[in-house]
């Protein structure tokens, strides 16, 4: 395929440069409104280009499409190489979509004077995160992987809550510690590649690194190194404790993006790096990872029940739901029947990631709506909100139900597929995973009950105003996404059909 325009680069850099420009122009008072529209237009443009890519994308192929290759650091074997496949495209789309929502809802969340820098940071972050998904060179991936932390760091620090400093430092140091292992692992693979006779820009190409022959010992070390990096991002138990703090302290938009996108990078990394590069080690340690996932599901589900901070609760819920992702990914290694059914685990994990993006994003937006009105996140400060904000209550209920995996919403699809897969490995996995069905209801709807239900007893609640038009728009868009994905997930599955099948073949083909 020969496309004249480097579409992927445009998708990455257009928001980044626009964000930069907006920052530069922030001082010009007269342009304030114009810049705001510029941000939205850029975002819509990005989404349109992305939609075009989706439209032109061949779901049954596993090869990288729309690939771009430019010289970057040829001396070191590093290339500026981009491409999309069935895993990266949906996640990139999710990124742009969620950022759009954040931009739409932002004016209700931050002070007017901060709005432009706020927009700019989100645009930059969006570009960088899309870069993570599009990069087909390991080091380029790593660069984006780390670079997106900078705007996130500033975002939380600038607009976060009281405890933001602790949260940002915890978050960023956690992630950096994780990713350093990834870096060393990539460097190691690089030298294996060189020794295997690869030269030039191929030595850091993800594709090359996926096709190396590694001894079992090497695989084991590499596995843990890479796993650590991605496990922190996902986050898996027990390296999850950054997330409740970061989510809680981040401004609404930050929480949304953190939950919707940042966590997905961990899962994406597993699919892109861990599985194809060290399949034997993955198989060897699958039980460990599955057990960790199940701990995440049950333990974190329990922890979520006793939280008194809405954001913290949703954050913990995110961890539990991401436990499904890792469960789905690693359960495929223990399937004894025909391996072609393993694809369901991968599909489920992907769908779970996308859907969790929508749902947790929606929930954080809901908390943001409340927070922007009452400036508190404590559940006990609310009660009876449904009386004064009925429209909001409806949306919140929908997201809450999606969060508990109600069929018909996107939250169900991934969990369903993963549960189906997990049984093929062991009925116990299914049982423990299904416990989240109960715990999820317990924490989500308990929170909903305490916040929304009941009679209005506080003056502050009685004077609440229902959703504004911007908020409504954002919620409607999200609702549509959640319902469409829930009612008809097949188009998305077909989008990643080829990629997912190929991954399974790559990973389990030898069995």
């Amino acid at each position, binding site marked *: 395929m020969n496309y004249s325009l480097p579409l992927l680069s445009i998708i990455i850099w257009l928001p980044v440069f626009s964000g930069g420009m907006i920052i530069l122009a922030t001082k010009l008072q007269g342009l304030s409104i114009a810049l705001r529209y510029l941000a939205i237009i850029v975002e819509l443009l990005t989404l349109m280009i992305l939609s075009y890519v989706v439209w032109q994308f061949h779901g049954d192929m596993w090869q990288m499409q729309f690939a771009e290759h430019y010289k970057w650091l040829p001396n*070191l074997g590093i290339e500026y190489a981009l491409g999309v496949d069935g895993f990266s495209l949906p996640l990139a789309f999710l990124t742009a979509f969620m950022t759009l929502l954040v931009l739409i809802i932002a004016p209700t969340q931050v002070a007017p004077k901060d709005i432009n820098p706020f927009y700019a940071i989100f645009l930059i972050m969006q570009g960088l995160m899309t870069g993570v998904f599009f990069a087909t060179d390991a080091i380029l991936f790593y660069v984006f992987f780390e670079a997106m932390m*900078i705007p996130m*760091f500033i975002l939380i620090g600038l607009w976060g809550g009281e405890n933001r400093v602790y949260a940002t430092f915890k978050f960023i140091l956690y992630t950096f510690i994780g990713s350093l292992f990834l870096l060393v692992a990539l460097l190691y693979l690089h030298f294996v590649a060189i020794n295997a006779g690869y030269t030039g820009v191929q030595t850091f190409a993800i594709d090359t690194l996926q096709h190396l022959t590694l001894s079992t010992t090497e695989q084991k070390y590499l596995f843990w190194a890479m796993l650590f990096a991605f496990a922190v991002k996902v986050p898996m138990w027990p390296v999850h404790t950054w997330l409740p703090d970061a989510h809680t302290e981040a401004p609404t938009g930050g929480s949304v993006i953190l939950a919707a996108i940042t966590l997905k990078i961990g899962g994406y990394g597993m699919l892109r790096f861990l599985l194809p590069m060290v399949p034997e080690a993955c198989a060897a340690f699958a039980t460990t990872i599955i057990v960790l996932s199940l701990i995440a599901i049950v333990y974190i589900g329990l922890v979520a029940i006793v939280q008194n901070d809405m954001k913290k609760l949703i954050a913990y819920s995110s961890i539990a739901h991401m436990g499904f992702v890792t469960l789905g990914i690693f359960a495929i290694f223990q399937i004894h029947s025909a391996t072609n059914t393993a694809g369901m685990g991968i599909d489920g994990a992907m769908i779970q990631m996308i859907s969790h993006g929508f749902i947790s994003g929606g929930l954080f937006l809901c908390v943001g709506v409340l927070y922007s009105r009452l400036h508190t996140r404590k559940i006990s400060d609310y009660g009876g909100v449904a009386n004064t904000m009925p429209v909001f209550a409806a949306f919140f209920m929908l997201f809450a139900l999606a969060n508990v995996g109600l069929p018909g919403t996107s939250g169900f699809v991934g969990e369903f597929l993963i549960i189906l897969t997990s049984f093929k490995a062991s009925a116990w996995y299914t049982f423990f995973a299904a416990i989240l069905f109960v715990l999820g209801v317990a924490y989500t709807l308990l929170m909903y009950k305490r916040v929304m239900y009941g009679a209005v007893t506080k003056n502050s609640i009685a004077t609440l105003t229902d959703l504004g038009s911007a908020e409504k728009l954002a919620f409607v868009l999200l609702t549509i996404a959640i319902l469409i994905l829930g009612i008809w997930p097949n188009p998305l599955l077909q989008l990643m059909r080829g990629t997912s099948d190929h991954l399974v073949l790559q990973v389990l083909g030898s069995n």
Partner: protein
Amino acid sequence: MGKANLILMLPEIFLACMALLVLMVGVFWEHKLRYITYRLSIFTVFVTGIFAIGTYSESMQAVINNSYLMDNFSAILKFILCILMLCIFLYSKVYIDIRKFLHAEFFALSLFSLLGMMVLTSAADFLTMFLGLELFVLPLYATIVMVKHQGRYAEAAIKYFIIGSLGAGLLLYGISLVYGATGSFDFSAVSGVQDLQHILQLGMILILLGIALEFGAVPFHMWLPDVYEGSATAVTMLIGTLPKIAIFAIAYRVLSLAFGDVALYWQQVILILGLLSVIIGNIAAIAQYNIKRMLAYSTIGHVGFILLGIAVAPQQGYLAPLFYTIIYAFMALAAFALIMRLTAQGFEAENIEDFRGLNRHAPWLAFLMLLTMFALAGVPPLVGFYAKFLILQNMVANGLSWAAILALIFAVIGTFYYLRVVKVMYFEEPSAHPHAVAVANMSFVGRSIVFINALALLALGVIPGLIVDICLKAFR
């Protein structure tokens, strides 16, 4: 030794003459023409830089009995030294007025020091090396106290002096032992010796440790924080940037030319020093409140990385540590320049607290500082990342993955204190007394170059190939 060859030394000769001239002019005309020495020095460094790059050629040439090497390496390093010196002069112009420096002396001494460093980059025998080293450190001791009111500058200077001299002593004693073992001062003479006697080993170790001392590697690092903190920012900037390149140059010369064949003997020593430096430098920096002192400890950490690069260089080449050194010099330059931007009459931005809420008053300045801090922390896409990346790449290639991980862990711990500066600037409200972001503390040119300098850390991060190519040329 022909005439034609001496032309190759034109940069040094020109610099030496001009340095003397600056001294003279300072004595006789300074009170009449206020900035004459400044302008003259700028001119000198500028022309020297051009001469230096003029010596760039594909083949290596030796002058003065093979004791002085002119090759791509020396040409490029000299050029970079000149650029750094030029920046320092441009940045410090107003600052040294505010701090009441002795103009002529400051510039002349700096130029002499530069001369010494340039000599070091070309040194090919131990005598040249020793003289170059002394020529570059002695003026530095003096520069620290070229101020009307010395205060603790004198303390810093004397500490630097004593320890620097100790280093020189170790080096010299090592040289004497090596001479005893080989009977020659030529670097190349050592490389011929296959069987290392103990005396030669001892000499080698002492030389290495002497170099490590000047670098500021653990356990010879203790002078560094005191000197950084105790000097005026302009001097700290001088001490914190150029010498690193010069010392790296001499380390390269000695280790590749003299001890290249016996790398097995010293690699582990350097590796251990490097790891210790990374660990102790980064940890100690966390407890610091003074930003210059913090940067001093961070320097120790960075030196550790350079040493790690050197430790694996015999197998992997000197590209990575050279790249690191150059990048580090520019990052440190930007950092000190930005600290200097906060200076005002009677006020020196020294404590991290002084940066509190800087984003409110001077968003650009805060942003540049942010870039610099992230660059120092080695976060991509800033250029500091590629520096670390190259080093790590070499370490992993040498089978030192464990050391790479160890070093990286402490580098991440180091991120903490860099980010703390960002935190103070961005996440906290300004303190009661307003910032002294005076326009007057740096000339317009200086301000522009600071701007370019800091932004370059980002730009080069996007296209790091530029510097890598330059470094590659140095070894061609």
